[in-house]
């Protein structure tokens, strides 16, 4: 297992090196010269000269790339044009919010999606199946931002059941240790703060979780339907095992394997979706920060965040493969 993990980590290296080359080339391909692109509208001749000096834009390209990689290795991912804040610092500050939102959305999608998909497969062709499958189809085709806008309109602005935006009510003076607001509330025993953060999470998480939910429903249904036709299920039935035992030990155990992979693969989708969802709900995470960076052409932020996101994404994929090996002994991880 350890060898497998190490080998997979080693395989990440060429991908990440390739990505740094592309990102390096990307900044140079931006309209105007790179110093101007990095400085944005506030570029003054002195500023450009300073950036050219600092980033070595006057040096040969290979030297420039070496400088860039050296900076990355020492943890310097550049600074935001707008705020001057180091990109790493901004990422560390904003990421907990997105992780909190993404995990909630994914857990929600899995808790609702797996049972629905299972029920649909067990009732193939009946009303329940049609209903669930049509619903999941709607979930797949509705744009995330449209759903987010709809939810906000109905549940926040018309019904006033839930807050329209932000991560926590501004009037709550909560202590933040980890920047995971719910966790902070629990750690400091400020229960009202934790509850308020949870309430603020509902609409964004539902909006973000809908597409993964729909996908999980469809995969679960397909997978359960396939397992139902397997010989071992028929054998289990003919042995006279109780229906519950068959469902748990024989059907679900086998059918959930592709579902686990699918859940893991939603990470990329969640990150794309987070940019849109967080923007609609002014949810202060990396999604909204990226949205602002895009609007202000804050390229160092984009460059740094894309690299961070790619690293996280690759690690999640590795985690999925390892989990797969653990829950399915038939898969030889080597």
């Amino acid at each position, binding site marked *: 297992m350890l060898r497998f993990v190490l080998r997979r980590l080693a395989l990440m290296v060429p991908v990440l090196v390739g*990505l740094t080359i592309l990102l390096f080339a990307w900044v140079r391909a*931006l309209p105007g010269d790179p110093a101007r692109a990095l400085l944005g509208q506030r570029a003054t001749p002195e500023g450009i000269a300073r950036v050219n000096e600092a980033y070595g834009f006057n040096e040969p390209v290979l030297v420039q790339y070496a400088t860039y990689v050296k900076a990355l290795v020492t943890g310097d991912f550049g600074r935001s044009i707008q705020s001057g804040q180091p990109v790493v610092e901004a990422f560390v500050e904003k990421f907990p919010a997105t992780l909190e939102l993404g995990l909630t959305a994914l857990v929600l999608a899995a808790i609702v999606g797996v049972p629905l998909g299972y029920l649909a497969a067990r009732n193939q062709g009946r009303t329940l199946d049609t209903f669930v499958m049509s619903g999941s189809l709607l979930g797949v*085709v*509705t744009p995330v931002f*449209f759903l987010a806008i709809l939810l906000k*309109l109905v549940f926040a602005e018309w019904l006033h059941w839930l807050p329209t935006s932000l991560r926590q009510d501004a009037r709550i003076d909560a202590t933040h240790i980890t920047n995971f607001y719910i966790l902070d509330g629990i750690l400091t025993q400020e229960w009202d703060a934790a509850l308020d953060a949870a309430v603020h999470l509902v609409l964004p998480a539902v909006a973000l979780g809908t597409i993964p939910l729909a996908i999980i429903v469809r995969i679960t249904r397909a997978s359960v339907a396939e397992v139902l036709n397997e010989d071992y299920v028929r054998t289990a039935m003919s042995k006279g095992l109780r229906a519950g035992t068959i469902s748990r030990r024989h059907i679900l155990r086998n059918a959930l394997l592709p579902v686990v992979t699918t859940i893991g693969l939603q990470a990329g989708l969640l990150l*794309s979706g987070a940019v849109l969802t967080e923007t609609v709900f002014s949810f202060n995470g990396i999604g909204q920060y990226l949205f602002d960076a*895009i609007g202000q052409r804050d390229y160092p932020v984009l460059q740094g965040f894309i690299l961070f996101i790619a690293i996280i994404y690759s690690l999640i994929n590795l985690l999925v493969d390892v989990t797969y090996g653990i829950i399915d002994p038939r898969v030889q991880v080597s």
Partner: protein
Amino acid sequence: MTIPLPPATMTAPDADLDEPGVSLWRGAFRRLRRNPTAIFGLLIILAFVLVALFAPLLTVYEPGSAQWAGQVTPSSVPGPSEDHWLGLDRFGSDLWTQLVYGARQSLVYGVVSTIIGFTVGTSLGILSGGFVALGGRVGVWVDTAVMRLVDIMLSVPSLLLAVSIVAVLGQNAYAVMIAIGTAQVPIFARLLRGSMLSQGKADYVLAASALGIRRRRIVIGHVVPNAIGPTIVQATLNLATAIIEVAALSFLGLGESDPAVAEWGRMLVAAQDRFDAAPQLALLPGFAIAVTALGFTLLGEALREALDPRGRR
């Protein structure tokens, strides 16, 4: 007295579909015609294409004209009236006109970007899968290089990939199409390569090589046509994704910037601050995007089912 032959229908009701001589595609087409879901999807697509093509005949106004901007106040947007049966939009253009012309944009953007993604993606897939099939050290190298490139592209969420490309190419229609198309490339490349590799073990490949046909001809003439099916299904499904992503780029402020061009995603963004007064400004373009995407998704899934060999009885 002759012994009556057993009725032909004894095997399976659909047995005639796969009698010898009926090709995979013709069989799939026949199954598709009998599938109500596919027909429903096709009808949606047909309606969408007709509206897009004949937009000028469906309305008497010009898109993005903002002719009646004077009637729009910060607190109200005029609703349906005799002259404007869906009312005005936030900038004082006819809402129906905007919606109808928006279909045009979505169709062009969706189709062109998917063609870009399909062409580049399948070329990479053929390159990679073909070189694996041809074997040799060069083959492995080409395959590895192409697949690493695909891995790199897949490690960046597709929306961010599209955003980075628009940043380089500038904010215009071509940039949007190229960006959305490029974001689709890795999917097509991986899919076709995988499908070519599994076809490579088929008996007909063995038979063809036994006949002494050159490897290159086997790959191009036999493996690719047999392996392309899933890629075409994916292209249909990707049309849905592309239309949604174009709207998403507009939502991020990176789409078409010309106010005279109507675009569903931008209509949604503009409607956001008029929710209470005029929710239809957001609802109609949103539904338009979702219904169009539904049409392509239904057709794509029906196509997938029809092409699935397990579905052939």
